[in-house]
């Protein structure tokens, strides 16, 4: 029997200290947490910034490390600080060192690196060992060179390697979410189908409960042919539908989970209520793949942006909004050409988002009615922040006084909430890979460094 404690769905998003205490009383075999996501977009992979603050990471990691060391069980965190690049891994390792020093903890730490060498990836590309996944952008050497960062999503093998070396705390760069939770059970001989399915349910913490009101811990208990999931928080409960539903989340099919070493199929899975809050899951199968593959993620610079936020309230303008906006956009572009010259055309992109009309769905929006006011978001993208800001200054002045035929005399047609109107948004990135690579071995791309932290 193996018991798994997932501290939270995303390190830094939090969990209740009281729930962790209850979960620790159940004597889990390890504490895991995912720290990564591509959900908030390419910025974190591109820039190395983190989704949560150091304080938020430290609060969660401190409670996990204290609990793990007190019980003598491993603490495993994957996809450090959002994107799992080396700098983010080092940041989280640094936080772990600070906690150890402040709380007088001592442990053997393994840090797993996930940023492969560019030369290695170019060789793999030449050998035809990088293949696209669904809807992938085009790949050539330039994509590998241009990327700000490229990471590979580790499987369970680097974790098992580190655990085999006696690591008591593992902090990994980018990793498949499930590998964080499947590694130790598989290492201890658990049926891989049971381990991977449990990992899929647990990697989001308490997300598989009937009604998740706030992020919290989750516990699963594994036998060889089934696992039982039961929330340690007494306010929460799981039922067969809530657990089965979690397979839908962030996945293109609830029946399949593709991992580096194989594919989990939940087609024949059974979800049975053991009580009004515990669910027994069995019947999944795991088929080893013929080739071992590591998914790659990359982000490249798309440009620097300057934006202006404003609102239009005049009913006369709103009644002819589309033609007014089309005229305004043309006037802005003409003004930019007049100031910066003809060759500015290919050096910037100008885009206006209209809140209250189609800001969420863009050109796909089927609804045509608008309300009593509309929000405008002007966006200029250029290769430097200086240029983006300079262009936006021309846009801001042209836009705010753009006329309508019904009014004679100078009008001020947009309400700007800020002075200055333009806001430097900094670098904007673009996800540039959706591919898998075939390494020669599961460990080849993931260097592991050990240290004794005290």
């Amino acid at each position, binding site marked *: 029997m193996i018991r798994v404690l997932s501290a939270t769905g995303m390190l830094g998003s939090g969990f209740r200290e009281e729930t962790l205490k209850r979960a620790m009383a159940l004597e889990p075999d390890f504490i895991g947490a995912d720290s990564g996501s591509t959900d908030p977009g390419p910025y974190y992979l591109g820039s190395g910034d983190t989704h949560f603050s150091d304080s938020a990471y430290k609060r969660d990691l401190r409670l996990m490390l204290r609990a793990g060391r007190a019980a003598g069980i491993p603490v495993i965190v994957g996809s450090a600080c959002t994107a799992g690049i080396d700098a983010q891994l080092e940041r989280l390792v640094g936080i772990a060192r600070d906690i150890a020093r402040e709380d007088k903890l001592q442990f053997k730490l393994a840090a797993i690196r996930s940023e492969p060498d560019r030369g290695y990836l170019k060789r793999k590309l030449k050998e035809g060992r990088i293949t696209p996944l669904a809807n992938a952008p085009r790949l050539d050497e330039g994509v590998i060179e241009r990327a700000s960062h490229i990471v590979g999503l580790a499987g369970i093998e680097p974790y098992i390697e580190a655990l085999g070396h006696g690591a008591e705390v593992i902090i990994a760069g980018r990793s498949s979410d499930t590998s964080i939770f499947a590694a130790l059970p598989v290492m201890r001989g658990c049926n891989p189908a049971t381990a991977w399915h449990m990992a899929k349910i647990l990697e989001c913490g308490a997300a598989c409960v009937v009604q998740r009101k706030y992020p919290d811990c989750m516990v699963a208990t594994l036998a060889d042919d089934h696992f039982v999931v039961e929330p340690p928080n007494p306010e929460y409960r799981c039922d067969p539908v809530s657990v089965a539903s979690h397979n839908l989340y*962030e996945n*293109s099919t609830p029946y399949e989970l593709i991992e580096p070493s194989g594919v989990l199929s939940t087609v024949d899975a059974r979800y049975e209520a053991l009580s009004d809050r515990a669910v027994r899951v069995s019947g999944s199968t795991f088929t080893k793949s013929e080739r071992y593959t590591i998914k790659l993620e990359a982000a490249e610079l798309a440009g620097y942006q300057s934006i202006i936020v404003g609102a239009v309230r005049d009913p006369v303008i709103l009644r002819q909004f589309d033609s007014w906006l089309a005229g305004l956009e043309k006037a802005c572009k003409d003004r930019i050409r007049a100031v910066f010259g003809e060759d500015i055309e290919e050096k910037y992109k100008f885009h206006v988002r209209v809140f209250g009309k189609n800001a969420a769905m863009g050109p*796909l929006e089927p609804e045509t009615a608008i309300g009593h006011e509309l929000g405008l978001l002007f966006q200029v993208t250029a290769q430097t922040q200086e240029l983006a800001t300079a262009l936006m200054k021309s846009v801001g002045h042209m836009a705010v006084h753009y006329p309508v035929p019904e009014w004679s005399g100078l009008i001020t047609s947009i309400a700007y909430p800020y002075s200055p109107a333009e806001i430097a948004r900094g670098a904007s990135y673009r996800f540039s890979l959706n591919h898998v690579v075939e390494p020669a071995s599961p460990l080849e791309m993931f260097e592991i460094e050990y240290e004794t932290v005290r």
Partner: protein
Amino acid sequence: MKLWQVAKLIRSKNSGPFELTFDVIMKDRATYEKVRDANIINAQWFARTYRLRPEVVSIINYDAAAAIKITIPRPTISGDIDDNDVFGGQQYGPLVDLEIP
């Protein structure tokens, strides 16, 4: 009747930065089977609404959760400069008021 009246959850979300996935989870098994068997949520409706070819629309009936899952290529890559919805979380609007016979 509208879809929101028989569903306990209608949502959209990225399935990675390159795909958009929709979940329609029904309140009860009987309604799920009715909606599923009447083929109300179909590739043609999705293709029309999201301006795609029907061949790229994946629709999966998930009996264990009384749910229907639809996955389409993302109209833009998540977070790219012309993207409107980084998480892909507000793309299900047109499904909410879909007519249920």
